């Protein structure tokens, strides 16, 4: 589904990703772990199409199609979703209205008929229940005055509504207490199917107790330096990132 080859990315002239390779197949959950500054959030943003990030080399194939030149909205329409580390507050736009627009844009791109109002409402209800989000939150302006947990839950709710093929969760666990984390993770688990895939980016192993990955990759200094099964996350937790830093001293320079 997602095939990243030799990806090099710069931001304001500074090289962040230095030849990254990653393959994610449908039905799989991959976790990307790494120390601060390794390039984790850059990877998330560049998959979603943030324009400040300049792809200087390599390619991002999504279902066989190079998406590196597509705009963020075209990628969303192709089926890419990014759950933000810091979801944005948008006063004056209700989550429901904004999702109505988003759903109809995505459907139009895929050549589907516009959704009937009653079908949309039914879907809304179903997904709200699925991710355990309060209806009074979705009726309010997007994320305005939401707690950290409510914002993250709203991200998962949007993901549920847009039904992406690939969801990138950028440090979804940051700023969450254990209860909020469990609710968010349960939402994600309910959305897992054989047809979609998840890329879970996190600094800590904690989230992976709830969203169990098929593969774990360690991102360090712009490259994936280690890959393994879920046990790798536990090993990292135990030994800390210094273990990686010691193993790859040449990269520190």
């Amino acid at each position: 589904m997602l095939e990243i080859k030799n990806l090099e990315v710069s931001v304001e002239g500074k090289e962040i990703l230095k030849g990254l390779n990653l393959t994610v197949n449908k039905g799989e959950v991959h976790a990307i772990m790494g120390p601060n500054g390794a390039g984790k959030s850059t990877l998330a943003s560049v998959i979603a199409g943030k324009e400040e990030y300049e792809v200087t080399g390599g390619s991002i194939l999504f279902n066989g199609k190079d998406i590196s030149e597509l705009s963020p909205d075209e990628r969303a329409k192709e089926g890419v979703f990014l759950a933000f580390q810091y979801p944005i507050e948008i006063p004056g736009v209700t989550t429901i209205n904004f999702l109505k627009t988003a759903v109809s844009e995505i459907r139009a791109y895929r050549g589907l008929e516009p959704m009937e109002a009653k079908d949309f409402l039914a879907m809304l209800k179903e997904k709200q229940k699925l991710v355990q989000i309060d209806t009074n939150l979705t009726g309010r302006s997007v994320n305005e005055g939401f707690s950290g947990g409510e914002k993250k839950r709203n991200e998962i709710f949007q993901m549920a509504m847009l039904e992406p093929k690939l969801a990138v969760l950028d440090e979804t666990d940051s700023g969450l207490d254990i209860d909020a984390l469990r609710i968010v993770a349960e939402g994600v688990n309910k959305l897992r199917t054989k047809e979609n895939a998840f890329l879970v980016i996190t600094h800590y192993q904690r989230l992976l107790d709830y969203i169990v990955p098929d593969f774990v990759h360690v991102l360090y200094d712009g490259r994936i330096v280690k890959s393994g099964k879920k046990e790798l996350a536990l090993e990292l937790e135990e030994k800390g990132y210094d273990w990686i830093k010691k193993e790859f001293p040449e990269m520190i320079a």
Partner: protein
Amino acid sequence: MSAVAVKKEVSTTKWTTAFEATTANRLGAANPSVKEVQEKAIQDFASRGIPDKKVEDYKYTNIRLYLNDEFLLKGEVPMLKKSNISRLLIGDYITLVIINGRFVKELSLLEKLPKEITLRNLFTAIKESKVAGISEGKGNPMATLNTALAQDGLFIHVPEGFHCTVPIHLLNVSTGLNKVLYNPRNVIQVEEGANLTLIESFHSFGLEEKVFTNLFTEVEVGKEATLNNYIIQEEETLAGRSNIHQVSVGTAGKFNSVVVSLDGAMVRNDLNVSINGENAEIHMHGLFVVKDGQHIDNHSLVEHNVPNCFSNELYKGVIADGGTGVFNGKIFVKQDAQKTNAYQSNKNILLGDNASMNTKPQLEIYADDVKCSHGTTTGRLDETALFYLRTRGLNETLARKVLLGAFAKEVSDTVKDEAFRLYLEERIHDHIA
């Protein structure tokens, strides 16, 4: 230097000549004391002329430059039919059609006008002594010009205790084949305990030349009275406009103003509110959407003359590349006006490198026990918010429209009349991009 002096003399002659040529048609012909006020005003105006940028209040809005050409006081006007007006109707309102400042009864919809409300041409109202006199306009040069040259306008009177449940819509159309400067004067009186929603819309139709309308509206909101005054401006580029609203609010009176400017080559709005009775409540909201080559200026003055009053003002601007916006808001709190609550805010979004915004919030406070604040921000559309919306499948144009629509909504949401609010939202949606 002598050239300047000559020029000044020429322009003086121009105005006094115009004044003399219109003696029989001006408001002064209806009443000797009004005649005196007009004579004083023309002398005052002729010595100063149209304001240029050396006049502090017109520093960013050079009306003199705009009005540099020879403007007539009367021109050839095409006959408008009901079918020309029908698309401009809003809701099921009492609609008064006003063409170039003149009330046209034949095109108006007056079936719903309650018999309690007095509606006259201002000239007639003065003649019938329903209106005692006209205001001089407190030193504003454009108000002085209007005072000098005003020929007619509308008089609307809502009597004590009467609640007008249907809004009155003043549907203004600028039209004509010649360069003309119009100076209409309206007088609106809402008496003690009365209630009125007054909608003013400004449109243009089939303009062949520049038309400039210098409208001066005197408004009185009586004791415990409420006036909702909603304004939408959508004139095409040949139409220029100076809209002066001079509002006086009495004890426990409520004045709610919403001014939305979506089009116009040169638009200058002056909203001057004088609070003259305790416990009055004033809300002023504005939105201006300025396109390439356009200039929209909102000036406001809130005078807290007495204690225990509240005023809140929020103006928002969206300025496209090549457009110029101006905001000047002044809150004046007199020494006696203790326990005043007065707030003011101006927020602007610039859509390009060549968009320009001049903003000047002012507080002048002489009382010591007050709560007052003012603030202004000018910035670009939030790039992170744009990216967020785009990752959800909204293309750039749509994402911008959603964000700008949300920015504007804070203003349109303050309109209490639902039909007008929906109309406004639709018009705003069409104009922002």
